[in-house]
């Protein structure tokens, strides 16, 4: 499977996750987000880059609990809440935001 962004064909897995983070850029993120009916705002980008930092540090995509804790640590308790992330990336923040950030699907994510 693949998606097409700026006339470039990018390989994705069966759930729509990019096969290679190297191919990710902001246009790709915008395109994937549109397919999820999400218009990216500054608040979205903050979480997208946060997720990419998590992946760089730990080499895994965080499940929901870990994403909430990491957000709390990096951005403070106001944003480190399920409800905040759920409003940005409904209906499943860890899965949807990882997809937009070009990361693999989080393992063990309900």
């Amino acid at each position: 499977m693949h998606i097409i962004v700026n006339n470039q064909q990018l390989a994705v897995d069966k759930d729509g996750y990019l096969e290679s983070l190297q191919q990710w850029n902001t246009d790709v993120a915008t395109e994937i987000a549109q397919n999820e009916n999400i218009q990216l705002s500054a608040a979205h980008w903050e979480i997208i880059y946060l997720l990419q930092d998590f992946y760089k540090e730990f080499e895994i995509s965080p499940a929901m609990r870990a994403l909430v804790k990491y957000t709390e640590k990096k951005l403070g308790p106001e944003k480190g809440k399920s409800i905040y992330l759920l409003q940005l990336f409904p209906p499943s923040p860890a899965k949807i935001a990882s997809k937009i950030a070009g990361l693999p699907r989080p393992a063990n994510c309900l």
Partner: protein
Amino acid sequence: MHKKILLISRHAPYGNSIAKDAFDAALATAIYDQDLSMLFMDDGIFQLLRDQQAQEISQKSFTSMLSALPFYDIDKLYIHQESLEQRGLTIENLIVDNATIVNSAQISNLLNHQDHILSF
């Protein structure tokens, strides 16, 4: 319902998928909100070594992955003292600084207090 679960990881990090399976099982258990402890013994100790350069063999690094455990609220980590000594290692060689070092007698006690034991 909370169960007390001990996950024992006793294999080296690379070469087969046993250590990765143990790690995945730990994350899954944490997501179901269980009372999880992890015990590293035998060659499982090597998973905790600092500065593993797994990218050289196109693998993900256990140094990185295991560092994520606190974000899954997995903070009860035990390390078998004799396994550590047999490999000429000390706690300073490992990425965990809040783990409890246990000897064989203390491990029996640990095992006796669990509802379930998962051995990898």
